[in-house]
């Protein structure tokens, strides 16, 4: 009997949340929360160290009967794709705790409990190998996220939280219908791997594809179901934004990778042009929206829509480079956009304004802050040498192979990205420094630096030596291609 590593990773934050409920002192709550998330991160690192990159098979699997009558089991396991996101979620977990250290000053205990519950459920989604279990985690995530936005958010938090809840719930209900259809069509099992092996007729695949599409597209989010995102981000506290951008948005793309592509390969191939078109639309439309923003948080939020368009473009290019680029870009977006939301949060804590027009000449007063902001801004616009460039190059190469027109649209999105990101940086950090007199801004402190540094490391690590990261996903992606294209015909 080996150590149930994945169960530990998934439930450790939940145990932490349980412990926190018995505490009264806010500082103790913060430290304990940090301790649990750090320990969880250590376990995730251990999982990656022990991960065998040569196989696409599920690893660290655990199976226990749960509701045998309905074929429901408690089954966990990770392949290369999910392993990468378990790691990302665990990394962002403790960074979120640090980001909330001073920003959250009321109902600290309740906040950390929500945060850790959220953490557990997200990890559960990435580890679940049983569709029912997956659905439980997937739906349960809504509750802590609703609370994080709705209780600790900004002035319009109730509206934003409700909008978020409605959109996601609507998508999830269609997903539930899909799950039930899949259960009966796939031989009354919830075993994801068994369902993947089923060869469903095309018309069933088509219906399921669209049911899943709406559920996942809301999460990604893809245009036109993206409108909940800017509201949610603007109102959410910093940690909420980091989770939303860093992990929650990845759930939609992960859904495509785990369900749509392997279970519905014919439909995925058939509708891939549609998906590419929607992705290109998101890239360009999101870019133009970001270009028009004066609110820092909205700008980053709309940039996420554009960047997630790159992810789905890569995925539905349905070739090796596109898929690897898309998945790598999911990771990169988690790191970089997570960092950008952290930076917006840091400056908002000091000035209580997010309007770009209120800033200028920050470099003179907060040189460390602006230096790191430069790094993450450049990473977000995919400067060669940073993480996003590797992903973007792969996505574009895959995209051009799939469709030159949509590849060209994506290039336009990249150009827009440079425009709004560099424009934002210039207005905030450089320029005549007359606005800065209004603020007494102190530079980043040690605690904040601890949260920033690991993200900065990943920006350059993936940018200059992406091999270990691509190595993790490589076998699984190749297997996925075989599942989609059938043996021997994968490009």
């Amino acid at each position, binding site marked *: 009997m080996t150590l149930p590593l994945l169960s530990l990773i998934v439930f450790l934050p939940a145990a932490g949340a349980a412990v926190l409920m018995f505490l009264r002192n806010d500082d103790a709550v913060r430290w304990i929360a940090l301790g649990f998330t750090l320990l969880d991160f250590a376990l995730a690192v251990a999982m990656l160290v022990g991960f065998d990159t040569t196989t696409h098979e599920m690893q660290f699997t655990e199976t226990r009967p749960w509701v045998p009558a309905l074929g429901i089991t408690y089954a966990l396991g990770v392949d290369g794709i999910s392993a990468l996101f378990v790691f990302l979620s665990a990394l962002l977990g403790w960074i979120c705790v640090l980001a909330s250290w001073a920003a959250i000053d009321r109902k600290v205990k309740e906040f950390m409990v929500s945060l850790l519950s959220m953490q557990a459920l997200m990890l559960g989604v990435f580890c679940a190998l049983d569709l029912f279990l997956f659905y439980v985690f997937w739906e349960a995530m809504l509750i802590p996220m609703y609370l994080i936005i709705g209780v600790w958010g900004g002035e319009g938090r109730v509206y934003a939280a409700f909008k978020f809840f409605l959109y996601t719930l609507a998508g999830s209900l269609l997903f539930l219908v899909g799950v039930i259809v899949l259960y009966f069509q796939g031989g009354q099992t919830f075993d994801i791997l068994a369902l993947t092996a089923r060869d469903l007729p095309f018309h069933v695949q088509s219906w399921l594809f669209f049911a899943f599409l709406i559920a996942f597209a809301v999460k990604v989010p893809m245009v036109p179901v993206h409108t909940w995102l800017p509201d949610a981000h603007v109102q959410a506290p910093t940690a909420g934004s980091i989770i939303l951008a860093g992990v929650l948005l990845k759930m939609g793309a992960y859904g495509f990778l785990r369900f749509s592509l392997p279970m519905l390969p014919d439909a995925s191939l058939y509708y891939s042009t549609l998906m590419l078109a929607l992705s290109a639309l998101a890239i360009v439309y999101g870019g133009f929206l970001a270009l028009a923003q004066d609110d820092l948080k909205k700008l980053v939020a709309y940039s996420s829509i554009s960047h997630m368009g790159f992810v789905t473009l890569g995925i539905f290019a349905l070739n090796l*480079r596109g898929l690897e680029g898309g998945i790598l870009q999911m990771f990169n977006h988690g790191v970089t956009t997570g960092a950008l939301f952290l930076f917006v949060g840091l400056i908002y804590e000091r000035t209580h304004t997010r309007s770009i027009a209120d800033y200028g000449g920050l470099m003179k007063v907060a040189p460390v802050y602006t230096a790191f902001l430069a790094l993450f801004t*450049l990473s977000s*616009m*995919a*400067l*060669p*040498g940073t993480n996003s460039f*590797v992903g*973007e*190059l*792969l996505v*574009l*190469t895959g*995209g*051009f*192979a799939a469709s030159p027109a949509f*590849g*060209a649209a994506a*290039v*336009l999105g*990249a*150009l827009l*990205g*440079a*425009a709004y990101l*560099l424009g934002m940086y*210039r207005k905030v950090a*450089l*320029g*005549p420094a007359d606005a800065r007199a209004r603020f007494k801004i102190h530079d980043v402190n040690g605690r904040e630096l601890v949260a920033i540094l690991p993200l900065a490391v990943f920006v350059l690590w993936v940018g*200059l*030596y*992406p*091999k270990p990261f*691509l190595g993790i996903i490589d076998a699984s992606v190749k297997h996925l291609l075989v599942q989609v294209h059938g043996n021997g015909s994968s490009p």
Partner: protein
Amino acid sequence: MDPVLSIRPLLAVAVASLAALSVLLLHNREKLRDLVSPVAAVLMFAIVASMAPTVLAGGTVDLRLFEILPGIDLAFRVDALGMVFATVSSLLWIVAAVYSIGYMRHLNEHAQTRFYACFALSLAAAVGGAFSANLFTLVIFYEVLSLVTYPLVYHHEDEEGWAGSRKYLVYLMGASKSVLLAALALTYHIAGSLDFRAGGLLAGADASPALLTVVYFCYLFGFAKAAVMPMHAWLPAAMVAPTPVSALLHAVAVVKMGVFCVLRVIFNVFGVGLVGDLGLGIATAYLVSFTILMASVYALTRDDLKARLAYSTVSQLSYIVLGAVLLSPVAMVGGIIHIAAHAFSKITLFFCAGSIYCASGKRKISDMAGIGRRLPWTMGAFFVASLSMIGIPPTAGFVSKWYLAEGSVEAGQVAFLLVLLTSSVLNAAYFLPVSYSAFFEAESGEGHATVREIPLVTVPLVATAFLSVLMGIFPDYFLTLANGVVR
């Protein structure tokens, strides 16, 4: 000849990067800080020079760090073309480092630490680019160069500085995040690699001529630092920078990085054969001929000396590209050695502009009448460098223009001989009046009574003027390297 494996290419980059770090650390010990750059420059030049014998003998110095993606490594390879660019940049950094100290101290400029740090990083990026073994590595250094020169352009932090630097970044980043990015992705898609190959990476590739043509022009305009019209407007805008920056970076390192990248694409990505087969050589030749003539006409109309020099640079850069796309060996040699010839002479001209500004505060040519009698060394050097720009023996410019002219005849394209001649006449028309007015006209306005040469500024510009003549008399080093590229 087997490639020599060595860490020296990386070392050359590291020396300049460490220099930048030292500058930052020594920010409140000014004398020591100012010493860092000249010392680092000498060290870097020594490292570059130590690889010269291998390259002159037809070999390469290689360093492969690790794989980025399948078919893409982070890797260095010092070959003849890279050696031309690296020699010029590192040699002129020594001179420019001394000049900068004189210039910055005399004008008591602000933010000198940032200035020296960014300056050193620019050289790290330029030499890193020169030694890159593939497009991926090259593009990293190319972009770093854009970024670290940006603070140098907005250095004065006045309205003019912000506006100029904004234009600078919009053009350079805009081009690289659009057409260049597309070119890279398409190249990787077609060839499965981004390596530089001797006969061209895309030679024999399975792709339609139309697609290859698109990729080619994406590169030509994507590398906006080469300033082929209409991607040239950033260069005059960059003239708001302090003059040492205009001299070394916007006459040598940055702009030569642009044409260097274009030459890499022609020689090692497409290959001369493919460029010829697609009929792209002659198309590009007409395109850059337009730039050569048009920029010269612009230069004629500018009264601000640095602006005139900037448009002259736009024009001269296209000479280099013209040499390459004529696709005859002699013309290619001419284009390649023009990298060095133009560098030595144009840096002298900028140094002179800075010397005049330091000594008198004058920027407009119309205000410089009679100044030659007060600044004989400066204006003497200006005259020598002007002769080289026009192409009069025994200067460096004569050698490269000779090869270009002979090459266009060899290529059977006599039309371009006419372009070269017309351009030379235009060069004479916008340079010689400056010297004439400085030496022979009466002092204008209030006169230049208090104007004196500043030794720390004058010595470097005399040295580079001397280099311009020296290369005219002994062009062997660069000719050998250029022949190595063409072979």
